[in-house]
């Protein structure tokens, strides 16, 4: 709440219902963030004692990676939301975007964690009708999650608060938009199974064993998770760039963000081409 109401943005003239909606949008994202942490804590301990493996690595690696990633994503949206104009922030559009982001983030992680506890794969799992259906639903949920970030990014560019620092606003807006678009493209390539067969591996040994530490990316062949990772985290990289520019190079903000957008695009393209050619990232 404080993030919205501590601002000097004039809130006069807004109806109580719309003020409530603005506070509710923020609370939804906060709750979704808390839900990720609440599942991450027992998942981390389970990782320490559970000996079950999936494709040669602990069943808990995947939920932990997604929990962490979604904490970062919810935190990013919470960070950028108050830069939107107060009147817009109180609109139904923002509320719907925040609701969609929170609901899909919670739904995805609930299923991923449940499947880990069952010792079964959540992604690329078509072995039972229910799991195949759930994999499909997760795909739709993930697309909606990314689209909600895209919507918030567009609002940030078109309806900014007059008090929003330029770098953070542009970095945040373009970061969410470019990040969302490239995430959707890489996710589609990854999920389609058209490149290197079903799964995210292209050539090489199809396992995370011996993969890049922490990430598990293949070191023997291409891995479509690499461009997907960079695409998703443009949503953090560009706002952080904007924040730094605001602080240290306030005169170069626009050119700096433009350079950041090009660099992000280049990194995702390069790692995508690399993966498609079955070359390991490192």
């Amino acid at each position: 709440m404080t993030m919205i109401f501590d601002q000097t943005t004039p809130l006069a003239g807004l109806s109580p219902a719309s003020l409530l909606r603005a506070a509710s949008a923020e609370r939804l994202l906060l709750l979704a963030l808390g839900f990720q942490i609440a599942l991450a804590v027992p998942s981390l301990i389970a990782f320490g004692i559970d000996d079950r493996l999936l494709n040669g690595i602990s069943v808990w690696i995947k939920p932990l990676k997604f929990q962490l990633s979604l904490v970062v994503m919810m935190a990013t949206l919470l960070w950028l939301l108050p830069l939107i104009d107060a009147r817009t922030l109180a609109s139904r559009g923002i509320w719907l975007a925040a609701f969609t982001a929170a609901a899909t983030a919670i739904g995805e992680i609930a299923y991923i964690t449940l499947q880990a506890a069952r010792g079964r794969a959540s992604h690329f799992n078509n072995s039972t009708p229910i799991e195949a259906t759930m994999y499909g639903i997760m795909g739709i949920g993930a697309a909606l999650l990314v689209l909600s970030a895209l919507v918030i990014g567009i609002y940030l560019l078109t309806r900014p608060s007059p008090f929003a620092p330029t770098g953070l606003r542009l970095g945040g807006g373009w970061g969410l938009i470019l990040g969302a678009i490239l995430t959707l493209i890489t996710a589609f390539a990854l999920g389609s199974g058209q490149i290197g067969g079903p799964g995210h591996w292209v050539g090489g040994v199809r396992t995370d064993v011996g993969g890049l530490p922490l990430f598990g990316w293949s070191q023997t062949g291409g891995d479509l998770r690499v461009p997907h990772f960079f695409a998703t985290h443009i949503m953090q990289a560009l706002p952080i760039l904007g924040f730094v520019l605001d602080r240290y190079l306030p005169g170069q903000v626009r050119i700096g963000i433009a350079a950041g957008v090009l660099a992000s695009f280049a990194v995702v393209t390069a790692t995508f081409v690399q993966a498609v050619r079955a070359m390991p990232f490192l």
Partner: protein
Amino acid sequence: MDFTQLFPSASSAAMLGWLVLILAPRRPIVMQSLRLGLIGLLSLTYAVLIFVYFFRVEGGGFGSLAEVRTLFLNDGVLVAGWIHYLAFDLFVGTWIALEADRLGWNRVVQAPILVVTFMFGPIGLLLFFIMRASQSALTTAKA
């Protein structure tokens, strides 16, 4: 995982919690450490045990008595089930204590209700409900 260690540790921790609840002053910090600290820790332990062991039990589930029996044949799930009792009974105990304080019940009267809740959870809760109902019925009648 050594369940023969986990079982007595969890039980002793819960026992300590009950002693604190029955004997210690009801400061907010005491009640919060019971709820967020001790019960939180028991709940976390329960969550980890369920995460790791529950779905491994072949033929286990909540659908029939046979399925539940199969579940509890697994030591991991059995300890989890025990910790479920410990955590939820103690939470109900803290709730009864706070309600009883609010109603102004003497701590000596509260003690047996809490001990019964500790030993046989729902019976303690039933005692509290019936005592509270009869008190309110009698005070209304008198007024």
